């Protein structure tokens, strides 16, 4: 038994010696990620803001593409079935689909809820951190706050335009009007900070954004007040470039259509014309030589996002995507003011193209239809059409119940997307 005791003692001693220095034996690192605390200092503020903007720009491009597919702007031209619920408009019956989980950098399966939620979180998280710093700690605090409130506002706005309901920071489900109200608050804060910092582009973009969500909330006077402040020629873009080979930095519409042939312009939007029968150059399309993913379709691309008939990724990936611009502000004015004021605004915009002026009736219904049609062509594939279909209760095209031409099935009724399973299952407060 003494032998056993000695052996146990020796083993224990060896174990103790090794155990005392095990941290070195077990230390490893994760060289591809950093803890979130890296943002917890004023010195990281600029990086934090640039990161949030990058996430928004990727999310925005993806959301514009998805909104185009769900509406009558783009259609599917691939064999992979995962994204068909967008185009077939039955995503509302398949809450476990990609609209809830896909990210922003997939051309085949562009995401919307997750990337916009990430962008929203980034911006709001940055606002919280930036607010806590003093001006001395962070001399450009107001500039950064203006930017973050602007991107947060557009994140809420885009979520409200696409989702029937969304949640924030594991909170309860917020409906569309609630999201627009949140967006309005962020735009207001962006305006305040942009004015203080002298940031005209952020200021004007915030005016467009606030005018938009005020209009959506039925606040026409507020919308008019903001839209009138947007100067002619103003445009605020999501920056894009060709640095990552069709990845998150590229123009997502170009990547999904002309670059990869997964989507094309929907037949109903191939030659959009004014009531005069003129083809509107603002919604012109280019017939490309891109080979379609399904080997069958012809890939048509909005001219404003095309590199021409032939694919040129260096050019196409770097075409910027407008987030907010003067023309939208003018059409908000037209919609809010109505009547002859609307006709004047629209004809002014047409004259700049040039297109023939509108000379039709000016009753409320006619003007409403004029505005809807003008928005469709002027703001073609800019992420606004689908919510127009929803808020104006436009007739869905192709018709509900008609055969989905990919390989069968029938068109559904989706306009806004319900809260996806990934949120409902993993957020204890979501309903």
């Amino acid at each position: 038994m003494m032998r056993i005791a000695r052996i146990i003692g020796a083993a224990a001693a060896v174990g103790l010696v090794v155990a005392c220095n095990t941290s070195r034996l077990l230390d490893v690192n994760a060289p591809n990620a950093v803890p979130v605390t890296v943002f917890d200092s004023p010195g990281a503020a600029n990086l934090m803001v640039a990161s949030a903007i990058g996430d928004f720009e990727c999310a925005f491009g993806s959301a514009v593409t998805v909104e185009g597919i769900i509406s009558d702007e783009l259609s599917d031209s691939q064999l992979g079935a995962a994204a068909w619920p967008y185009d077939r408009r039955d995503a509302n019956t398949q809450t476990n689909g990609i609209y809830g989980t896909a990210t922003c950098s997939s051309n085949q399966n562009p995401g919307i809820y997750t990337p916009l939620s990430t962008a929203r979180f980034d911006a709001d998280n940055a606002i919280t951190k930036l607010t806590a710093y003093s001006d001395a700690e962070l001399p450009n605090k107001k500039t950064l706050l203006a930017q973050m409130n602007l991107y947060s506002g557009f994140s809420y706005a885009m979520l409200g335009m696409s989702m029937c309901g969304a949640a924030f920071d594991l909170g309860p489900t917020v409906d569309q009007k609630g999201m627009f109200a949140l967006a309005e608050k962020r735009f207001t804060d962006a305006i305040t900070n942009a004015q203080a910092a002298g940031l005209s582009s952020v200021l004007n973009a915030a005016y467009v954004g606030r005018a938009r969500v005020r209009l959506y909330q039925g606040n026409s006077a507020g919308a008019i007040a903001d839209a009138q402040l947007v100067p002619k020629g103003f445009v605020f873009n999501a920056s894009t470039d060709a640095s990552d080979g069709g990845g998150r930095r590229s123009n997502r519409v170009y990547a999904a259509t002309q670059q990869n042939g997964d989507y094309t312009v929907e037949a109903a939007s191939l030659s959009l014309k004014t009531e005069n029968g003129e083809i509107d150059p603002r919604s012109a399309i280019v017939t490309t030589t891109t080979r379609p993913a399904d080997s069958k379709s012809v890939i048509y691309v909005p001219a404003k996002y095309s590199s021409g008939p032939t694919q040129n990724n260096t050019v196409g990936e770097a075409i910027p995507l407008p987030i907010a611009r003067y023309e939208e502000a003018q059409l908000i004015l037209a919609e809010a003011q109505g009547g002859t004021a609307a006709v004047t605004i629209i004809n002014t915009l047409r004259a700049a193209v040039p297109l023939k002026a509108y000379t039709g009736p000016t009753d409320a219904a006619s003007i409403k239809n004029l505005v809807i049609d003008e928005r469709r062509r002027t703001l073609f594939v800019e992420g606004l059409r689908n919510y127009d279909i929803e808020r104006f209760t436009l007739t869905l095209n192709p018709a509900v119940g008609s055969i989905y031409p990919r390989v069968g099935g029938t068109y559904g009724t989706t306009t806004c997307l319900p809260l996806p399973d990934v949120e409902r299952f993993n957020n204890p407060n979501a309903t």
Partner: protein
Amino acid sequence: MRNVGWTRAAWQSAALLAVLLSAPRRLHAQGGSVAGTVVVSGSQRGLSGAQISVDGQPGHGAVTDASGRFRIGGITGGQVMLQARLLGFRPDSQSVRVGATDVRFVMSERALELNEIVVTGTAGGEQRRAIGTSIASVDVADVMAKTAVPSVDALLNGRAPGVVVLPGTGQIGSGAQIRIRGISSFSLSSNPLIYVDGVRVDNQTGTGINVQSFSSGIISRMNDFDPEEIESIEVLKGPAAATLYGTEAARGVINIITKKGASGATKYSFTMKQGSNWFMDAANRLPTNYCNSFTNSACSLHPGDTTLYSVNVYQSENARGTPLFRDGGVHNYAANVSGGSPLFRFFASGEWNDNQGVDFANERIQQSARTNLSVTPNDKFDLESSVGYVKSHTTLSCEAGCGGTMWGSLYSNPANTSQFCVGSTDPACGWGRGFNSSPPESDRSEQFWQDLNRFTGSVTLRYNPWSWFTNRLSIGTDYTLEDDVDFLPYITNDTIAYFWGSSFDGFRYQNHHQAFYNTYDYSASANANVRPTLTSKTSGGIQYYTNYNTFFNAEGDHFPAPGLETITAAGTKIPANSNNTRNNTLGFYLQQEFGWRDQLFVTGAARVDNNSAFGNDIKWVTYPKASLSWVASENESVKRLLPSFINNLRLRGAYGGSGQQPAYNTALRTLAPVAGPNNQATLTPSTFGNLNLKPERVFGTELGFESGLFNDRFGIDFTYYNDVSRDAILSRGVAPSTGFGASTQYFNAGEIQKSGIELGLKAQLIERRTYSWESNFNISTNNGKIKRLNGKDTTIDNGSYSHRVGYAPYSWFSYRVLSATYDPALRKAINPICDNGNGGSMPCYNAAGVVQAPKVYLGRGIPPVDGSWTNSIRFLNNFRVYVMTDFATDYERLDNNLRIRCQIFHTCLQYVQPANTDPRLLVQMQSNGVLRDFVINNASYAKLREVSISYDVPERFSSRFSAHGVTLTASGRNLHTWSPYTGLDPEMQFLSGANPGSNFGVDQAEYPPLASFVFTIRANY
């Protein structure tokens, strides 16, 4: 035409046989002596180490060499009685004439051998009689002598109760998922740990380019090891058996023991295999697909055309002279040499294998070599080295969601045939010949391959300074270098180029992956006789394992001209990625065993581990173990009570724990770098993390007995086990509202219990000098059940499967449609009625058209019952027939082929002709994928897995050419399946790498397990 490969194989075999038999003859022993061989019944493999003695002539005897040969000289008399004995075999005797040189002992394995040494983690191993748990052993050398088994996972299939082999695809080079006693984790790897000669090795499955989109690669690292160089495989099942292996061992441990040299004459062995793989009954398994103008506007030759059109591309391509599949060749050559002296022993082998799949792109060419050396300078010291090298080139084809021939043909569409091209402006119209998207010649343009270089080496030093003390130090490494490539050349054929769309000008993606597994293992055991009847064995050890992986991948798209192949030559370079991961484990164990009269063994042990994944706070995790083993039949008082036909009975029981941890840093909330605006590197939310994450701990109890009956001609091995996985870890989606929606989060989700039985029956039904019949039957059950889910959860859904309290993990849940009504005017089934979950019914949808019925249980994803029945019959002395049938029952597969044809592409006859279809099915097919219980189907099966017939060339012929044994074997594999499953094959599923992914249990356009015929010549010198 597989007979071509068959005939070629036969000619090549005959040629090799002629070469082998032309070797020079040797002289034979003369009078005053006897000589012969000792072989094992069944495989007729030579047995080394058997003791041969002569009755009445003490001092005259011999021990058989590595080939089973013996020679005894100086014998007096004309006729003597020889006795043959060997551990693990029943003794044999025969009267022989002095001077005979062709004495042949055929020894039968004991149904129960309690004295054999098995590997348990302690220095020097343990006698089976002292171990309180069940350990499955596969005598690989014996199996390989009976039949042709192509891979390590196929060796385990049906031969180790409780080990479930889930193959997934029939592509050559692929490997199965191995599950030991089912699944005890929701989301962590269920791959068992693998050791080769004491060194932990890469156990990844699903490596290589992802050729199963929605899933993973399909190449298993376990199958790098050639069965020809393996002596045996031992499987430790459950936490009680694997406690000494510590963290990660909860999923079981597979010990691969390679062949070693034995002292004696040098032995040479040559093996050649020639054969063919084929797609069994493809004509009846690949469906005919349909369309008409009601379901597809393109399926019409003129307005008002309502004709039903059909296509079966398997038939049409055969008629066209471009068959979809080939018969893949099997060309394997192996040679080894072994021998040595008591001081130095060696084993060296080399193998060259070229196996082709039925897809024209699928092939694996592998070369492997092994050198195992043993040095024993004295009785206190020995040194063993084990060095193996594998080099292979595996080419694969797209399957499953990736596309390829299976995808294109299973989902073929008559609308894509040329008859509908009249007036079409589609430039590709008709070129698809009915394939879903593109014809096979287009699919084959894309090339996938993995180049592998793998080195596995170890050195084991044993030092026994005293008779009571044993030390063992093992140091080894397993280094794997994988180069995975996905390459599409610039396509110059306009027709094929059209199908490649914007990718027609090619691309190359390349992933360079290195994996290092290092093992440092010191163990010691001390034996003592506490009392004359009480022994003590104290064991302890320290193990340190490191795992380091590096990844570097890059991609280039769009070659400017044909002939360019490198990423550098591509016009668009996708930014490269590199990463590395590390994970280290340090552990200690201490075990105390007491033995009473060599009959009763009581063991207690504790394992203490720490791992990199446990975080910076040193959290040592302790796993206890206790076991009892009682060889009751050796207790005189018990023996008197036992019926006389029971000659061995051992009772055993054990309790123990083991565990596993998630990957490093899964607890942390992190940001990852991405490209940002203005060429600025930025950060984006990456992992959500969980600071409260704890390692899984699995504790298990097992009880069982083994018994040898009728002089050990019959054996029973029975085990009941009950394992509980506490804090089972689940990976679940993160709510996007957190900002980290693109990631998943590991958390301790709850408790999983799994229990079951394992029963092995062995029978030497007939044993005669010239004929015999052995039969083995194994069956195991696994009744997994989720006992608890933390928090408010009672259900965690993931697509068609769910984790629910009271059910096995990964069970199928979906809406069950009970009835519907067919409306001929609409050509639709309407008013679906669903199971309400309480035995009643309710409308499936609410007024808004959203499903309101609950998902209900539809079955299990992993078979809870599996087993095998093996028969080996020897007749006419030299002929043997070996048949193995295995089975799995009571589980379901999601037949995604059916779903895709009927619910997505709408080409199944039931959808196209709705009036003739059961409305209950039709309403699901017309639901755009929402209702789908009709695709979750019973996948129980029995398979005629292995059939072989062997002929041992009589020694009087083979010995003329110096060969001591030549065996000819014809083997068939996967020759027949009995199953109610209506899909392509009940074994097919997405592989999903190491973890059950979201497409677990989904059968979708994978190649089915291939049938094969292999002719083997095995010659020993």
